[in-house]
């Protein structure tokens, strides 16, 4: 057993971190939120060039995947830098089409891997979302409905989210791409991939919130001292770190289980999803509280992460659904 990331995986994370840091993602997020997808698509192309989207696509379709662990590593960095767009959905669409194969895979997967196409995905099942994230920015919106996969040809009105960088809409109409008993199984796998990378993304969001808040309480003084010297402040931050640190290995284990097609993968993914997202959400609450009033402003970039934590918690598996799944047979 060597339950540690390899040097290559760490280096991959560092590379993405450096690239995203210099890309100035807060400006990209704000553009995306206003409906200007240009800077977001430019960043998307750079992420594709770094190999992020190919990780979900099988080799026979010009990808390098599926590599769930590398996806988790990459999505940690995407979350850390609040990258906007249907990221989990594109990865999950790659997983879906990769499993299904056929013409749709042949047409779309190379484009997803290369970043030429941005995909969104909507899986219509009980408790799932009826929306496709960023449907207006996507080149392809895939809809799974029972044993059918459709390529939507339109979407309903945009439904702005409490996180302005998330723009859901109902997918409408479309042509059938695949039908049959293979669809539900492929969709379940795709949803697990989506849940895994959402968990990883949430952890990145949580880490960014923690880092920024630690920085802030070190320099913010009241009563003549740094507020970070107060126990009440320290203990909230300590709890934030604990939650993130104990969610991380669950995310790695879930990625390994998906890689191995382990029959318990669903439970591992659910455990990772609920733990990572609860940790990230708690980090957001702490970040807001410890920043005080300035944290409650849109102009502070912190708001980009604070508002992301809550929707990620629900996306691709609510906490209740995840907990139920952990105990399922």
């Amino acid at each position: 057993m060597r339950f540690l990331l390899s040097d290559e995986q760490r280096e991959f994370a560092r590379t993405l971190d450096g690239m995203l840091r210099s890309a100035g993602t807060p400006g990209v997020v704000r553009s995306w939120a206003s409906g200007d997808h240009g800077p977001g698509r430019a960043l998307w192309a750079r992420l594709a060039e770094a190999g992020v989207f190919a990780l979900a696509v099988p080799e026979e379709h010009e990808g390098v995947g599926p590599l769930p662990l590398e996806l988790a590593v990459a999505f940690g960095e995407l979350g850390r830098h609040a990258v906007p767009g249907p990221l989990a959905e594109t990865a999950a669409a790659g997983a879906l089409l990769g499993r299904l194969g056929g013409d749709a895979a042949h047409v779309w997967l190379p484009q997803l891997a290369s970043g030429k196409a941005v995909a969104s995905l909507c899986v219509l099942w009980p408790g799932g979302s009826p929306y496709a994230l960023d449907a207006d920015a996507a080149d392809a919106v895939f809809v799974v409905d029972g044993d059918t996969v459709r390529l939507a040809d339109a979407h309903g009105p945009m439904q702005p989210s409490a996180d302005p960088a998330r723009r859901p809409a109902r997918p409408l109409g479309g042509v059938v791409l695949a039908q049959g008993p293979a669809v539900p199984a492929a969709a379940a796998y795709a949803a697990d991939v989506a849940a895994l990378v959402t968990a990883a993304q949430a952890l990145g969001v949580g880490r960014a919130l923690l880092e920024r808040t630690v920085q802030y309480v070190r320099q913010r003084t009241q009563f003549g001292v740094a507020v970070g010297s107060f126990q009440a402040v320290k203990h909230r931050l300590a709890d934030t770190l604990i939650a993130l640190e104990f969610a991380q290995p669950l995310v790695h284990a879930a990625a390994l289980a998906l890689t191995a097609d382990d029959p318990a993968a669903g439970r591992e993914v659910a455990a990772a999803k609920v733990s990572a997202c609860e940790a990230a959400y708690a980090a957001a609450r702490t970040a807001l509280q410890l920043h005080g009033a300035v944290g409650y402003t849109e102009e502070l970039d912190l708001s980009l992460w604070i508002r992301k934590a809550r929707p990620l918690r629900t996306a691709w598996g609510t906490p209740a659904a995840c907990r139920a799944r952990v105990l399922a047979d």
Partner: protein
Amino acid sequence: MDLDFTAAEDAFRSEARDWLAARVPSVPLPSLETAEGFAAHREWEGVLFAGGWSVVSWPEQFGGRGSSPLEWLIFEEEYYRAGAPGRVSQNGISLLAPTLFEHGSDEQRARVLPSMASGEVIWAQAWSEPEAGSDLASLRSVAVRTEGGWRVSGQKTWSSRAAFADRAFGLFRSDPDADRPHRGLTYLMFPLDADGVTVRPIGRLDGKPAFAELFLDDVFVPDEDVIGEPGQGWRVAMSTSANERGLTLRSPGRFTAAAGRLTDLWRSTGGSAYGPDSGSRPGSESCSGFESGSGSGFESGSGFASRSRSGSDSRSGSNPGPNDAALRDRVADAVIGARAYQLFTYAHASHIAAGGSIGAESSLNKVFWSELDIALHETALDLLGPYGELSDEAGEAPAHGSWADGYTFSLAGPIYAGTNEIQRDIIAERLLGLPKGRR
């Protein structure tokens, strides 16, 4: 990155599992916090030692197997999975022994470790004093130089099982003129039946008498029982406190096993708490903890792979009502928490195997497992409804009162081995880099 065990590790696990299956008492021993139970647990330590399982991670010359941290984790998983007795030698094995390995002399190791491994000598810790708890460095008990050793006086307290133990170890102020409180301390070992030692048992929250305070009046401690250099006791002791907080005191196997039993209990109740109408008593079924011999809830090596076999009666999966969803969530959180702790320690073991070491990170463990332990037991008591309060002395107590007993024990977790408040300070200051402040 992988979570795979080697063939040798699998064989090690099988060997431990088979050995334990053949020897773990079918009915739990009396509480190790009582005189009778202490003696029974001491005897069990002897059985473990004879089988070579009492201190697997120690070198062979002292009674161990030279096992790796991962093998130790495997052994612990099997140990708690088998519902084996609590370890009465815990304080010596997890606190004193690591100190001796790091700071002791060859003579001390040869003299102390074998009898610790066999349970012949059981050790108690003597850290806290009435005026020195979290602020341990303010301790006042003194050691005064004398010919061939030291004369020790003062008062120690909250010394677990010192009422029955044979020897103790702790810190004493040997240089009252040192410029800082944590300088001028010396780490000493002494017999609890020495002249000048008075042991006064203190009833704990669970009513058991094994806690004690120690009054030391001019007790002679020979030089050979000083660990490390005189005056260096703080540094010597800190190496053990990291052990106590970290994985060696509360191994994940303990929690994965408990979470497995909790899941069994939850399934056996059909997903809701026992009540006056449920028509059966939980102890009357196969769900009831120690006697069930159930699995851990996730089979070793494959994560959440399969649910344990016992307790899966026909009521499993019945439709829980709205109140039951809350209980279900808590059961799930216990299972997830135990798995997270297991994986976190696998990562630590991998880190150590790769040549790394664990420092302030052990404070993360301490807060996590102590809170997990309480939440897990609270959930069990709530599932048991009116049976949850029955202690190990109640004939009708489910699982021989192990849930109630475990619950009361868990309440001490956030306090001992450095309170969780101190741990959070350590996390904030050493891992997050926040400035020191007033406590």
